[in-house]
């Protein structure tokens, strides 16, 4: 009962020799192009110039939790403003390693460690009144999606940028999300989806929020999401990476503050 066949021609070679050579030439051109396009970056070039921020950033980027914490303690002890240590030191380190990661010169282990150093450093910066006033955000992965490495990185970076992040974990359904929104009145809900089969959960969530009359933007990202998908609902937005997300969040928080 073979229902259908694709109509193969038995014995046909799939490419002629000259086609193969054309492909090889094309491939080689593309390869040289892509190598030219990507100049090697150095960590040194991405760090802030002045001390102690440079050393702090360097140890965040290098994922040296202890050294980062020690340097932050010393800086604060010397009377540096906690907020400045965060923005000019800790965050610059996280930014630097993120840039290297985007250029495939750093990998997820480096990002995870940098996030740990960043968080440990943040705890030493005391009461960051000015930072914390930015507002609360909820973060989750789409129902059915258990990929959480990206979500955890996003959460760490958003927290480092002065938001109170409530992490609802993985595979969160829209009802549970709604409850959490009611409880915490966040400035935004963040959602991560890496699997195409799970992203439609965001449509459901977006609709539910409208239905319940809750005005909060749902900002989504991850490999399964793009602008076109997010454009399907008015209360849904796409952000490509944590950097863009923070810019979007800051704009929302500013608009809300007014």
């Amino acid at each position, binding site marked *: *009962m*073979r*229902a*259908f*066949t*694709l109509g*193969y*021609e*038995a*014995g*046909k070679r*799939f490419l002629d020799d000259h086609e193969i050579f054309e*492909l*090889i030439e094309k*491939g080689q051109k593309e*390869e040289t192009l892509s190598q030219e396009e990507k100049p090697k970056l150095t960590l040194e070039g991405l760090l802030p110039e002045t001390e102690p921020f440079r050393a702090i950033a360097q140890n965040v980027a290098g*994922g040296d939790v202890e050294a980062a914490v020690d340097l932050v303690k010393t800086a604060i002890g010397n009377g540096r403003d906690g907020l400045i240590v965060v923005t000019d030191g800790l965050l610059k380190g996280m930014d630097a390693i993120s840039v290297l990661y985007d250029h*495939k010169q750093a*990998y*997820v*282990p*480096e990002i*995870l*460690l940098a996030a*740990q150093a960043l968080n440990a450093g943040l705890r030493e910066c005391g009461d960051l009144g000015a930072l914390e006033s930015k507002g609360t955000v909820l973060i989750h992965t789409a129902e*059915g999606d*258990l990929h*959480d*490495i990206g979500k*955890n990185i996003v959460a760490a970076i958003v927290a480092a940028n002065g938001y109170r992040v409530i992490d609802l974990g*993985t*595979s969160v359904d829209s009802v549970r999300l709604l409850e959490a929104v009611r409880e915490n009145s966040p400035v935004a809900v963040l959602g991560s989806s890496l699997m*195409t*089969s*799970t992203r439609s959960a965001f449509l459901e969530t977006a609709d539910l929020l409208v239905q319940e009359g809750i005005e909060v933007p749902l900002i989504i990202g991850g490999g399964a999401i793009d602008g076109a998908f997010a454009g399907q609902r008015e209360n849904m937005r796409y952000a490509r990476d944590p950097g863009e997300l923070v810019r979007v969040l800051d704009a929302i928080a500013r608009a809300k503050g007014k």
Partner: protein
Amino acid sequence: MNAKKRIFSALNGGRVDRIPAWLPVVPVTVSMMEISKAPWSGSHSNAEQMAKLAAMPWELAGLPTATVPFCLSLEAEALGCQLDWGTVNRTPSVKRPAASKPDEFDVPENLLERGRILTALKAIEILAEHLGEEIVINAKVTGPFTIAGHVFGVGNLLSWIKTNPEFVHDAMSRTVEVTKELAKAFLAHGADIVSVSDPTSSGDLLSGDYYEEFVFPHHKDVAASIKAPSTLHICGYTKELLPHIRHTGFDGFSFEEKVDVLTAKKILGDDISLIGNISPVATMLQGTPEKVTTEAF
């Protein structure tokens, strides 16, 4: 040339009359569950239903292979991880790790009797008995790095690469035994091919150097232990891993469209056959039959 011969020949780098349509991962769909009357729940836990559903791609679409199990969590469940059982269109996967340090974890003596492993072994037996002459009976086993990610948490495992490399070596030396033991058991129950899936060792997470140091020796060990044709599948971007994958000893390497075929071929040479490279989402799920045919040939 019959389908089975064609696949074996292609895997060994030999003559074929055309490219075989084959894949070492899971091609079952929700409508196949409906047609085969093997519902989602049963197909993960009942050997007969598992076998029925696994045969569907052949019965329905002429894809000459049957693959079990359908998830990557068979091993993890048997090792004590808590699962999210998923839904009809979502395979079971690991919800919570089983341990937080390598020395908290030992491979259980009665591994094969735990979780759903006997079910999957029985399903392979049924498939081999009924379809073994016509099509390839493919046993999918999870690779050691992915099992380690399940057992200890991927975040932990990846952080240890930087903070406690010896933990990673220790963890891998334990989980590699699980992969090897399962592969051996599946073959003993009638599988023709063992396909190792190790998505967590993707180049999206690891550099080529990390792969070489922490994963490669174990992939080599697994490949050497499999006394049958074998394949390796790694998700995502794998270009930087290819120079090492070439020397693992697997017969085939299944990879995704993030690396183009020509680049892969140039790096892998004739040491390992290429499998896949057609986007499961953009082409297979969202594309058209024409698009699939064009990309395949």
